[in-house]
């Protein structure tokens, strides 16, 4: 695989835009807009996979799978669910301004940390080369943002979006860490994310019906 054949500028641009859309998906309070940001993020992943496919044709399959599962099915489930509910998410545990600051710190911190400590995370020679290095740094940043979203948001729908970001981060890291992963394994990983999102939204619909809200702090029936 010759990384020189890759369009590094395109990949870096797509990566940066992807981090921004991830922050947008976490921070935008209007749920529909947050889902739009998530969808854009998913499309950028597909774009990134296609860019990397120039040196690894099996990534075309990955891009196809990611398009179907992440950019079509998951947004469809999210929009169907959000369509019936209130427009804005419930106030998260952290206010908007401090949350944006935390997200920014996470974004810069994780990006720099992964980029400088790449040998720890990426044992292969290929993954330590520049474009793949950026890819891994972006993947870990998206992962951290997803985890942050899941931990600090009260609205169950927002936690699902956070979970999707978390999974997208891992998925993206596979490009550098496991480029020779067979399609069956990849298909299994990608399919499960969609099924998880579907099941979670199905259960959250039940929660909304029974509790009258999607506030996870209202789930207090089972304590200790």
């Amino acid at each position: 695989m010759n990384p020189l054949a890759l369009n590094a500028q395109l990949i870096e641009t797509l990566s940066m835009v992807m981090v921004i859309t991830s922050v947008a998906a976490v921070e935008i309070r209007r749920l529909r807009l947050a889902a739009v940001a998530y969808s854009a993020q998913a499309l950028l992943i597909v774009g990134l996979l296609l860019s990397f496919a120039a040196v690894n044709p099996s990534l075309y399959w990955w891009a196809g799978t990611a398009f179907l599962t992440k950019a079509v099915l998951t947004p469809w489930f999210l929009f169907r669910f959000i369509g019936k509910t209130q427009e804005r998410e419930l106030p998260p545990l952290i206010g908007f301004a401090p949350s944006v600051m935390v997200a920014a710190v996470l974004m810069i911190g994780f990006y720099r940390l992964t980029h400088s400590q790449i040998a720890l995370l990426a044992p292969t020679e290929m993954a330590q080369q520049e474009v793949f290095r950026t890819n891994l740094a972006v993947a870990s940043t998206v992962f951290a943002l997803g985890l942050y979203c899941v931990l600090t948001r009260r609205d169950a729908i927002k936690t699902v979006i956070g979970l999707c970001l978390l999974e997208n981060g891992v998925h993206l890291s596979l490009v550098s860490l496991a480029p020779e992963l067979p399609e069956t394994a990849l298909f299994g990983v990608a399919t499960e994310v969609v099924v998880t999102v579907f099941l979670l939204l199905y259960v959250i619909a039940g929660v909304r019906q029974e509790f009258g809200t999607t506030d996870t702090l209202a789930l207090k029936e089972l304590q200790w």
Partner: protein
Amino acid sequence: MSEQIVTVTSSLPAAAFLVPLVGGTLVFLGRKLQRAFWQGTALLASGITFLIGLRMSGQVLGGAVLTTWGNELRVDALSALMVVVIGGGGFLATLYSVRYVTQPGLLTRAGAETTARRMPTFYGLVLWFLATMVWGCVTNNIVMLYVAVEATTLTSGLLVAFYWDRRALEAGYKYLMLLTIGITFALLGCVLLYASAAATQQIDGGKALLISEVRHVAHLIPAGTALLIVAFLVIGFGTKAGIAPFHPWLPDAHAEAPTPVSVLLSGVMIKMAMYALARTVSIFYPSWPQLTVFAVALGTFTMVLGIVMALTQDDLKRLLAYSSVSQMGYVLVGLGLGTYLGCYGGLFHLLNHAIYKALLFMCVGAVIYATGIRKVSELGGLARSMPVTSACFFLGALAIAGFPPLNGFMSKLTIYLALAKAGLWWACAIAIGASVLTMVVLVRAAYSVFWGSPHGAALAQLQVREVPVVMWVPMVFLAAACVVLGIFPQAPFPLLDKAAAVLATVGR
């Protein structure tokens, strides 16, 4: 142990998970048919899985390792033991459910019509749940191991929320969300393990996915990366196995699911996750034996936290669920030691806990079936009206407390001896202390529910009767197993011995 191992190509590993998978699909396709069809299919499929497990154990004891689809599926003694536990637990839970689910309110907490409508979904999901658990134990592919463990969450998520009321939905949401987050870490761990193994250039890319091959190159992985992989795997599979502090989903899910599902979750599923943890982390033991102390510390923390939390519970099912957390601590301590004796004790305890925790959950289910009550403070004096259930519960309680000559005593003793032999006296003392607490918690609950004077107006108005035969037969069978394995601990020795040898990587 310089015995020659022969690799044999066999279709049994594939059949072990395809049978319940196809069975579950048939139940979904035949959802318009009668109850007898769904239950018959579930019994047949889980029974066949158990028999396949026994058959594979027989072949493995003969010195063979069974493989399918190249080396994609691989059954050694450890995998065969797990398939026996999953198949046996699945069959008995299904048998128990045959009458349990007919009681309106026990499957759906709703009327008979809703119960009947939901029943095929219940059996279909139970069979798929079994299939995914077996798949996880027979796969040799590191990424598929993650896929299978996550698949067990997906197939059981709706079973946990099956009652679809406030409590069940809360438990279901937490279950799906927390386990998926946790398991995502395991995916990172699995992928890093694969990438690191491939980077050693001692094995080619495709083979770096196979756990049996990765074992041989684990020592070449850089220490920092290895530590990161272990941390991710412990968080990921440890969450699923109910290891503290990643356990908060467990008491909710195990308590709120319908009882036959609780039997599967507590009796079988957490063991399967522990298997995944042991299978993957143990490959690093020869190069980094310091990991053993970390595993033992985590295990002792889990056993103490679990039993202290159980002490404060009034709800019988939550009490049992917390006790499961504690018992998984014992298994982790045993397997985490990495010595032959530790692994033997850990696996023996895994088998024993599957038996008596399934038994105890079935007994509590029987109490709920007969009275509709599950709070210790509202029950009492049931021994006269429910003699079989009462005897079985006492036996299970004594077994889990490690009372001689029952099976729990044997496996706990093995773990204590292993700890002492490794010089970890502090852990040995904590384990014995936690065992005494287990005795207090379980025997006190048993006394209160079955012998204590009846409490509460609700119970006084009830005509309590023993549960139907088809429910107590599995209970009596499991209670008998507690006694037999306690008196004849040599019975499972051949299989446990070989299975422990697979995991034992730190001295002997």
